[in-house]
């Protein structure tokens, strides 16, 4: 395949139809179209409204605790014996992950649109918790759809959502994971479209969601640039993040896309290996298709039926990916690689012991890739990894995987 001509900038997408090249778009039922157009209009206004931006910045600072630190992982760097490793510590945010960045932005939009009810889908529960949190903060009822399998493996987050006042519907259709939760959330939305705002948690779905989520998450990359200039006086050589739907990754990557000297690596869930069907590496092993409102790389069979996928990490257990990542893969700007369940588990344990940080299983995938790459790099080179979530929610899953009864 010939590579497309390299664009002048990787940061201009999407176009006004919501396309990143052939990816993205608005593949939704007619019932939702008027609302999606209204949302786009409201979002375009909010984007340039100083008042909206000021309110969001205020909440980011005083409610979430931004900016999140840029931490030099000295002991891990020493342990690996190569490039200097920095963590962008979005796991220290209020609610324990990067998901709150997007939720605050979207709930402000929901309020502007006069919506009185919030729905959300969640995989690991991080987005569900963040949605329930902002809904509580703004006094709106919140209904979270979560796969039945995920409810089992993420029990602490389920209880957190309940404490925050959210209603939770377990979805047992399909494999009972994030994909099925998203189908059910879309069914709710189509039924209650007049009153309800769908707070999508990842940089996927119909336009303008991928762009909107990216912009709310880009606070990660924008801060990281400034912090690196402050700490090192230059940009990093490599940045790296885990990719499920891809919201934390696009948030870190986007501000760096036009910095040609910064290598960008996205890490997918390789599950039990790409040879079988127990993985979620839609970019490495999938093909373009249409699901959940956008065209993007998907795990699917030869008849266009969507496969279920598998990952030890509920947050990566999704057979699709945000459309901008699909475009960044095809354009060659970002390199996407898979990491197996076992590698992520080892990385998880290493970080606990060496740095005293319990990471979520999602960024443990990015960490496993760093563990492979850092030793091969020079000591004066710099890696920034997005530590996008903390691992408290995963201790039961990890315990089970290690054969420990909790």
């Amino acid at each position: 395949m010939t590579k497309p001509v390299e664009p002048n900038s990787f940061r201009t997408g999407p176009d006004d139809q919501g396309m990143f090249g052939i990816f993205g778009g608005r593949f939704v039922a007619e019932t939702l179209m008027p609302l999606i157009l209204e949302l786009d209009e409201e979002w375009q206004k909010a984007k340039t409204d100083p008042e909206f931006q000021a309110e969001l910045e205020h909440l980011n600072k005083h409610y979430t605790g931004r900016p999140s630190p840029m931490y030099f992982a000295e002991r891990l760097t020493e342990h690996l014996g190569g490039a200097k490793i920095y963590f962008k510590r979005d796991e220290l945010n209020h609610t324990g992950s990067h998901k709150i960045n997007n939720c605050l932005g979207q709930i402000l939009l929901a309020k502007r649109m006069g919506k009185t009810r919030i729905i959300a889908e969640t995989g690991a529960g991080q987005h569900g918790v963040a949605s329930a949190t902002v809904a509580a903060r703004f006094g709106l009822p919140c209904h979270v759809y979560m796969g039945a399998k995920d409810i089992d493996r993420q029990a602490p987050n389920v209880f957190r959502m309940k404490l925050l006042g959210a209603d939770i519907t377990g979805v047992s259709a399909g494999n009972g994971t994030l994909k099925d939760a998203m189908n059910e959330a879309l069914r709710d939305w189509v039924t209650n479209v007049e009153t309800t705002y769908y707070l999508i948690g990842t940089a996927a779905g119909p336009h303008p969601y991928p762009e909107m989520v990216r912009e709310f998450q880009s606070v990660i990359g924008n801060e990281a640039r400034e912090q690196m200039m402050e700490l090192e006086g230059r940009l990093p050589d490599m940045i790296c993040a885990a990719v499920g739907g891809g919201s934390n990754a696009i948030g870190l990557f986007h501000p760096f896309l036009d910095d040609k000297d910064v290598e960008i690596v996205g890490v997918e869930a390789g599950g039990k290996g790409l040879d079988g069907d127990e993985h979620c590496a839609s970019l490495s092993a999938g093909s373009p298709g249409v699901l959940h409102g956008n065209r993007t790389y998907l795990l699917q069979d030869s008849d266009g039926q969507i496969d279920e996928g598998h990952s030890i990490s509920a947050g990566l257990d999704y057979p699709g990916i945000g459309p901008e990542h699909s475009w960044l893969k095809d354009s060659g700007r970002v390199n996407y690689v898979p990491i197996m369940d076992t590698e992520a588990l080892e990385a998880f344990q290493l970080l606990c012991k060496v740095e005293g940080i319990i990471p979520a299983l999602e960024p443990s995938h990015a960490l496993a890739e760093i563990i492979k790459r850092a030793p091969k790099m020079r000591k004066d080179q710099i890696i920034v990894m997005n530590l996008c979530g903390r691992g408290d929610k995963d201790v039961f899953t990890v315990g089970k995987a290690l054969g420990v009864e909790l």
Partner: protein
Amino acid sequence: MSKRFDTLFSRLKDENRPALVTYFMGGDPDFDTSLAIMKSLPKAGSDIIELGMPFSDPMADGPAIQAAGLRALQGGQNLTKTISMARKFRDENQDTPIVLMGYYNPIYIYGVDRFLNDAKAAGIDGLIIVDLPPEMDEELCLPALDNGISFIRLATPTTDDKRLPKVLENTSGFVYYVSMNGITGGAIASTQAVGEAVARIKNHTPLPVCVGFGVKTAEQARIIGRDADGVVVGTAIVKAVENTLDKNGEATKDTVDAVATLVRGLAQGCASARLEAAE
């Protein structure tokens, strides 16, 4: 464009009754039973057949059609077989319009050009693709029109007068009015509101307007059919299939008959829709 829609609706105008549009899931629970159901529909009084293409993630469908799609997929149904089912039907029936209904991804993966060639050769008259709004017309709608296949658009309660012209722009065959905001198999809140919506759409287009989502009984068909040019029934038919399956999910001797009996009742509802209104 296919002449079958025009011929049908002009005949129904003379007969002063609405069309009965019946949806069933292709391949549910297996190919042969499903083909037998399809063949039984016109005899039982169906005027237009919507042949459902199963999809793993039917975001606009309620539990009954979701389950039917999964049964069909488990029974080995795929797009090639669905098209072949239409062709086998068309070999015996030259008049009843066939509309394929489903989601875009299986068609996209099959290949749009190949799909349209095969669909045309099989005698398929129209397409309803739930997740292709007018904003995405270049994907399939415009190529389908070039191939003489109608693209039947869904109009919904959220489609206001400002948006209607866009929705109707490339629509042909008929307009499918979705009676409520929601998924297939829900409940119609107000038949009066449906009648008003049909009148509103008819102000914008000469095309026939058929109403679906939530029509389950002959009585509902009769009431909706007073205002609408057609009444679409789907979930009730799919449930009639489901109710006759054995504990292994396989068809029984009652399966085809149960659908035919239901459809005969619905056809009576349609036939009587305008009788008392004329009295």
